[in-house]
């Protein structure tokens, strides 16, 4: 009982801190916090796919797809912000389900390679369709909420809160059982009645939706992007490392990983240019070799059946 009450106090404190943070800090920290929250969304979204044993590089593609769809509909079709986000999400759902079906039988590394190829094809398409996307010159949108960082913070915190709710649901419902079973063996899971196709597609689609939302937020927040930035593999990699290092298959892990790594990154960025990506590489290697369960570890006991 004691352990639980402590946990709830910590969660409540974190939530309160998250809400009041922009009001007690300056612009620089607000900006940093916004990016951290965006990465937390991405890290969680990557973890959603990982839970169904999908090592996906597709979230890079969906991040870019979200960014470009919402920017283009906002600019060229004069959609209001919420509608441009909605269209981006809808398009993402369609693409994710199509890609999911196409790669249904691919497992492990084969799926990873295919998802990487998908992201890179999207990059080339963005570069090669300058009439729509602005090509290599990129695309610019007016600043979000007139540049009021507090509102931006509120929006991304809202998106993260949604992702956390989804994640908690996945962790505590029948999804958790299905995912755990599929991670050991999809065949055995299916013989025991798990509709593996459905769970695989839903985890992949959920992952895509939140990557897309992060991307759509990103472009409006930074007001400009180019294909090499929106489809930059480094963004995907960073969120992957955050999830792995924080602890896979959990809600706290990816969020914690995002916070820790973003702080390290910011420190590194100031001290050694380029250095922070080296750190990401090293942390990924070290994490896999020495800390396979991440910072939080897999705490099966918290979940289902208790």
């Amino acid at each position, binding site marked *: 009982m004691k352990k639980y009450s402590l946990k709830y106090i910590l969660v409540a404190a974190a939530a309160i801190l998250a809400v009041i943070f922009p009001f007690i800090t300056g612009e620089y920290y607000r900006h940093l916090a916004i990016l951290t929250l965006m990465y937390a969304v991405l890290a969680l979204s990557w973890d959603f796919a990982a839970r169904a044993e999908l090592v996906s590089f597709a979230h890079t593609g969906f991040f870019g797809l979200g960014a470009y769809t919402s920017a283009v509909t906002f600019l060229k079709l004069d959609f209001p912000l919420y509608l441009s986000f909605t269209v981006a999400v809808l398009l993402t759902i369609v693409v994710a389900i199509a890609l999911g079906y196409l790669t249904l039988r691919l497992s492990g590394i084969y799926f990873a390679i295919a998802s990487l190829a998908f992201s890179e094809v999207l990059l080339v398409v963005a570069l090669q369709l300058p009439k729509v996307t602005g090509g290599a010159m990129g695309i610019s949108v007016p600043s979000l909420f007139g540049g009021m960082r507090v509102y931006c913070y509120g929006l991304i915190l809202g998106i993260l809160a949604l992702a956390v709710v989804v994640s908690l649901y996945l962790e505590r419902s029948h999804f958790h059982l299905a995912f755990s079973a599929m991670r050991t*063996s999809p065949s055995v899971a299916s013989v025991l009645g798990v509709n593996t196709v459905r769970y695989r597609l839903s985890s992949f689609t959920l992952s895509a939706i939140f990557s897309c939302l992060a991307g759509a937020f990103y472009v409006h927040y930074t007001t400009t992007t180019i294909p090499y930035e929106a489809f930059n593999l480094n963004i995907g990699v960073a969120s*992957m490392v955050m999830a792995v290092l924080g602890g896979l298959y959990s809600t706290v892990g990816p969020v914690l990983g995002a916070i820790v790594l973003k702080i390290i990154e910011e420190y590194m960025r100031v001290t050694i240019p380029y250095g922070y990506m080296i750190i990401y590489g*090293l942390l990924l290697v070290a994490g896999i070799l020495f800390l396979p369960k991440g910072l939080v570890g897999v705490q099966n006991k918290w979940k289902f059946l208790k």
Partner: protein
Amino acid sequence: MYAGQLFGQALVNGILVSGIYALAASGLALAFGVVKFLNLAHGEFLMLAAYFGIIVFSTYGLDPLLMTPVVFILFFILGAAYYKALVKPVLKAGELNQLLLTFGISIFLQNLALLIFGGTIRTISVPYRTHTISFWGINFGTARLFILLLSIVLLVLLYQVLQRTRVGRSIRAVSQEPEGAALVGIDSESVYLIALGIAVGFASVAGMMLSIIFQAEPMVGFNFTLKGLAVVVMAGLGNVYGVIWASLLLGITESFIGVFLPNGTGWSGAIFFLMILGGLVVRQSRVRTI
């Protein structure tokens, strides 16, 4: 240039470049086929070798092609060490860990190169770099021709080793029937070590070639990993012999798209990804057994 000539030139360009693809991909295929290990950091060894070639050339004036035997041996040892230190611990840990580990190494090496060498593109100006010979109005870059020939020699050598030597037979045995190979007393551990050594060695030779006909930059390695993957996927995963025609297909397709499509060079970058996607999707119809 009339159309036939253009067609011929595109074909020749594609063939000339495919040798380097085949070298890079055969290492990837070997590691995948034998060790059942996908090395996403494969291209980074190629990138390191390219920089190595450039440094040695600019300091001592040694032609990279002449250095290939030495570089091969050096990188063979590097590959063996890589296996011992990093690959072996994750071999039993599952695919996710292997992928993330090698990807981490890849990112680390890319950005290390970026830190040390900067983002600028580097090339070597060997005397024959821009020299060409012409047949029927079609230009053959001398350097590229050399390199294609060298690739062919090396690939033939690899196949001969795989077919005719004791080591080669052990490698094939482990790749086809790991448990059976263990039963007849083949030490899979040393086979893995040799296979990864050869794989990295071949990547290094491709890297030396790269420094002559293309250029070295921190990202070039990953690009070659991806192209190598496209070749390996088309050849059939782990199939070392299928690498040749798949490399030819990739080289020629890229070349044709670059020449004949409007703004084609941009699209040719998407080709190998479509080949990966297509290749995997077609091959996935094989049903998983337990």
